């Protein structure tokens, strides 16, 4: 069973976001494997251990993302691909195109990705990739069973559980609760640097800049307004309700 895992290196969720000159400041920040992608890596390793085969982890991202790939290798993945050519960077559309080009160059039975990245939170790349490849996808999995060519996927459907049957080849995305990702072991870490990591460029993938040009543009980046002190209503309950409704309408404009 050949499993490909798409992962992104993101800010550690505990990091404070600082904006400088309209950009999110990156120096001194700790980067981690996007938590949803960590579930994907763990699931792939478990399936590989049960069914045999290979786990290949793939990322589109800057050079520093090698650390995330090495961590996935230390957890137990077999091979890594890093698309760190800046010509390959753009938006979700671009990322899906680039990943599709990488995936088309190899054999696979199953692709696992995270449900979303905790930084941009768009939740688009994996499903776009399935579309690019013309394969079915099942998103937000909390449980995955593979029997031969058949897959039973339990998905988190807004708090309910939906059970979906599908057949390989397939793309699935991981939701929190799919598994408990392992810590990489010391031996795993020591082996990680010796496992193959291939870097790919625009030319390697046979892509042109027009093929992958971003379809969206970030026009402004800003932090949410700082929290201000709350207001405690007092007096008669009926008056409090009136005051609240009017504040919601006029002050915060959350109800029309």
């Amino acid at each position, binding site marked *: 069973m050949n499993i490909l895992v798409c992962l992104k290196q993101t800010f550690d969720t505990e990091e404070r976001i600082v904006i400088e000159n309209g950009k999110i400041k990156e120096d001194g920040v700790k980067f981690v494997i996007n938590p949803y992608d960590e579930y994907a890596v763990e699931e792939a390793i478990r399936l590989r251990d049960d069914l045999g085969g290979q786990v290949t982890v793939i990322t589109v991202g800057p050079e520093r993302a090698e650390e995330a790939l090495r*961590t996935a290798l*230390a957890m137990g993945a077999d091979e890594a691909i890093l698309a760190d050519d800046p010509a390959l960077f753009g938006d979700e559309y671009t990322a899906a195109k680039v990943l599709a080009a990488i995936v088309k160059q190899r054999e696979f039975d199953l692709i696992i990705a995270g449900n979303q990245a905790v930084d941009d939170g768009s939740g688009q790349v994996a499903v776009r990739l399935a579309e690019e490849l013309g394969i079915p996808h099942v998103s937000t999995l909390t449980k995955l069973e593979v029997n031969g060519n058949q897959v039973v996927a339990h998905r988190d459907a807004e708090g309910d559980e939906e059970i979906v049957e599908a057949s390989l080849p397939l793309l699935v995305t991981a939701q929190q609760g799919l598994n408990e990702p392992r810590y*990489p*072991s*010391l*031996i795993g*870490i*020591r082996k*990680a640097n010796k496992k193959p990591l291939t870097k790919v460029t625009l030319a390697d993938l046979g892509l042109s800049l027009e093929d992958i040009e971003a379809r969206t543009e970030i026009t402004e980046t800003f932090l949410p307004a700082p929290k201000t002190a709350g207001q405690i209503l007092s007096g008669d309950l009926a008056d409090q309700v009136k005051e609240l409704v009017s504040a919601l309408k006029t002050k915060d404009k959350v109800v029309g």
Partner: protein
Amino acid sequence: MNFEFSSEQQMIRNMVREFAEAEIAPKAAELDRNARFPIEIFDKMGKLGLMGLPIPEAYGGAGADMISYCLALEEIGRACAGTGLSYEAHVSLACVPLLLYGTEEQKQKYLVPLASGEGIGSFGLTEPGAGSDAGGTRTTAVLDGDSWVINGNKIFITNGGYAKTVVLTAVTDPATRGISAFIVPTDTPGFSTSKPYEKMGMRASNTVELILENVRIPEENLLGPLNAGFKQFLSTLDGGRVAIAALAVGIAQSAFETALSYAKQRTQFGQSISKFQAIQHKLADMAMHIDLARTAVLKAAWRKDQGLPYTLEASYAKLFASEICTETCTQAIQILGGNGYMKEYPVERNLRDAKLIEIGEGTSEIQRLVIARQLGC
């Protein structure tokens, strides 16, 4: 000069930090309160390969370097100092002498289980009459046929109550005060331990007395050359000193982090106390001391990894890190005021834990003596 960690060192530190924050730190207050040895944490550490971190793979370890080991110890110490102390004693004081002086057979039989996390190791040097002065050792080992018979008492022994194997010293030639080292499996008849000491700090660490009454071990359990046990342990202690200094850095870091975040959110006289210069100076000194102590630890570790002499650097690191650690914890309590004195906050525990590092593995006085001797005094 290059102050950058390798990607492997970085990954090891990240892994241990995540593990320590998730699996150790949440338990630290309870372990301290109940003086409970966290055997379940050691099981998990064994599975991750931490118990043999700097021991070669051929002997059950992970084969990482001294720098990685120090980074790991700092992270564990930052989460729970007592757990860190027991870990350090297992690796530096039990595994390392087996690696350095054991025969191939001894390594396979005794080091592999310890380094692979199957059992915990312990090291017995201190006795009622032999603290700073190992020359006062009274425990004896007498060769009887093809076995050694050991009699005596060891005190203040870390991990003694949980150990599978103890490495200990005994007098083998009373005439010349010759001391040798031995490998003693703790299931040998005649070997027993006292109930754990009631300690001021490092309460998650198990500390007991070892009682040896006609403990009979095979002749081949002599570790290293006969009558050279004393010298042998001096070099073991060099590595241990660097490691325990890394533990001190971790404790200091923890106290500093608590103090810094407290100072930023505590308001008095209408402003955050972190705006008062008196508090700022304390925080500045703490941050500087920790950084310098960490640098001293890593320099000593780097010299060891390079195969260079590091006795002097080991003592610098141990002495400086342990003293600034106690000082940092005291100042952290001061910054927290009354809260700092309460068990609800971790800094009083940090201080109680810190003090041990000025005593164990060579007191501050002994470190100054070692340094002065290296200076040719």
